[in-house]
């Protein structure tokens, strides 16, 4: 399992846990279960976890599929710098968040799932993984006329392409006594044969 970045799975697991916490919280709050305020907490914690985990981190090797619309959350998550970059912080954070939800039956599954996600993040942190934001690539402005090749500036007969293409080497070649670039000096005088 050499190539696995554990953080990827931890991220999926944490996102799922967030959703489960929200669902459990809604059930407890709507049903006015005993100690339903834990349910309200669970909804808030679930939303927070979902928002934190929504932007995928960049993989070390290969390309990463972004989640739809994740760039907005990436900007926010990036702001917290080391708190969101470091996976030890995330592991501890998820563990602490999961504890209060464990007091209510409706959210206990969320607790278990988030605790597992916390464990996987710990494993990722131990292996030195980090969250790096996926930056949008700067759009290269199309240079107008950049691909238009100028027609040859010297009249025929022209030396072959190799000699024409590299002016710096031509100067070296000229120093060695080869045919020179720049303004063409015809070795044989050219006469116009049109009468």
């Amino acid at each position, binding site marked *: 399992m050499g190539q696995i970045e554990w953080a990827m799975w931890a991220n*999926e697991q944490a996102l799922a846990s967030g959703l489960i916490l929200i669902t459990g919280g809604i059930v407890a709050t709507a049903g006015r279960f005993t100690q339903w305020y834990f349910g309200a907490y669970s909804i808030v914690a679930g939303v927070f976890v979902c928002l934190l985990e929504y932007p995928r981190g960049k993989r070390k090797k290969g390309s990463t599929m972004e989640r739809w619309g994740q760039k907005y959350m990436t900007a926010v998550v990036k702001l917290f710098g080391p708190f969101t970059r470091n996976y030890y912080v995330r592991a501890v954070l998820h563990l602490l968040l999961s504890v209060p939800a464990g007091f209510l039956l409706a959210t206990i599954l969320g607790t278990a799932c988030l605790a597992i996600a916390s464990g996987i993040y710990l494993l990722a942190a131990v292996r030195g993984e980090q969250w790096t934001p996926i930056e949008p690539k700067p759009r290269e402005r199309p240079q107008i006329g950049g691909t238009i090749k100028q027609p040859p500036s010297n009249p025929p007969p022209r030396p072959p392409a190799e000699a024409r293409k590299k002016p710096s080497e031509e100067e070296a070649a000229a120093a060695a006594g080869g045919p020179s670039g720049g303004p063409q000096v015809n070795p044989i005088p050219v006469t116009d044969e049109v009468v």
Partner: protein
Amino acid sequence: MMGCWLLNEGLSTILVLSWLGINFYLFIDTFYWYEEEESFHYTRVILGSTLAWARASALCLNFNCMLILIPVSRNLISFIRGTSICCGGPWRRQLDKNLRFHKLVAYGIAVNATIHIVAHFFNLERYHWSQSEEAQGLLAALSKLGNTPNESYLNPVRTFPTNTTTELLRTIAGVTGLVISLALVLIMTSSTEFIRQASYELFWYTHHVFIVFFLSLAIHGTGRIVRGQTQDSLSLHNITFCRDRYAEWQTVAQCPVPQFSGKEPSAWKWILGPVVLYACERIIRFWRFQQEVVITKVVSHPSGVLELHMKKRGFKMAPGQYILVQCPAISSLEWHPFTLTSAPQEDFFSVHIRAAGDWTAALLEAFGAEGQALQEPWSLPRLAVDGPFGTALTDVFHYPVCVCVAAGIGVTPFAALLKSMWYKCSEAQTPLKLSKVYFYWICRDARAFEWFADLLLSLETRMSEQGKTHFLSYHIFLTGWDENQALHIALHWDENTDVITGLKQKTFYGRPNWNDEFKQIAYNHPSSSIGVFFCGPKALSRTLQKMCRLYSSADPRGVHFYYNKESF
């Protein structure tokens, strides 16, 4: 032919709708049963409708858990495929969509599990609350049942000063339910497409948590926590009369105390068959693993492609099928799929393996593809082969004209097909119905597939030897070219053979203009049925389907393009 083709396309939709229909039927039928059944009348007094929601989703869960193991019993599917039934084509094609069905059933399990869990949260909460001081009347009376010696209880929560979590963890159903849900969540989070592509091993190993899932499911109902009134009690205790007279239950003869019993566990009955089947499946895979595979030839192509020729007793294949390969020296648990690239007429079977992950990279290294000295045959690592699986591309031979389009790595099944076509062509005994094949190969960089270009070259020579140069017409499109290449190609345009591939037919640059191609083909074959076969990315598949629709004539005697959707 036309009827079969229609059936082909519509069959998937029909099957999915049938599955959905059965689910809805089971759900609604069970729901109404629990809502109306007399023996659960008193249970409903405490729980309300959530009893019916929980039980209905439980039945759907049983149904789906039964179904989920079947699409992944590969040997069973191959066996069914082997016994071909009438109009076998469309049904066999459905067998190839087994993984899609597996995922569909998994989603069904997830949805039903959510309903089931939420309903039971409500149930536990209500059971708990009905033991409180605030519960009055019938509710309180029912909850108190079971406190005296010859009463059977209804409410599994016996006292109020406890919390629902503790109560959950005291029941078998609760603990196994928690374990099952966790297993399901773990399986689903490690099966997302992202994780599967990033690390197939994580997906595969975590998926084996299904063993825990099924074991827990089998014992989930053994606590008999769903309680209804016994038949004997119903016959003695008239509900309509007695339900309001709960204060007199002990005293009045007409209303003896109602007796309750738990429902028998039924999940094991649903899942026993498929679990046994799947266990046999794994045993078969293990036995196949023990079978000897002889490696007869190893060819290391440049650009990291390894070609392996192998032999195995009793191995029969058809073009388009794939095998699963395991190399115990690299990993004792992983089986990786590879499309077969040899023709059935050859006395060996071959695969072409490209380094695209750690397992394949390790395999290439083990076989000395990294440019080391020649390997001795006895020092090559042992391989195990399971298969062949998958739909055969034999439908090609049913059409007089075929258009085969391969994009990128999708060219591999066509290697087997083209070779098979050539062999069938050379067998002079039975004249082939197939008389013309147009082959389009679109790839970014031909270097990764130069082994295929070699194959085309050898086919070209053999065809011209046989005098059948017009049988196969192939067009190669390179979509990744740069200016230097274009310059080089333009300079050598007038030569006889193509400068990149060395083939007589020239390589084109850029993507094919499908409108022109289809127009030309339709013009060449004005009244034939033309089969179109494709292997590659979905976007191109949609384009080709559109072309097939556009250029098929409305006249039944005119040209018709039949798009065969294959998934490899």
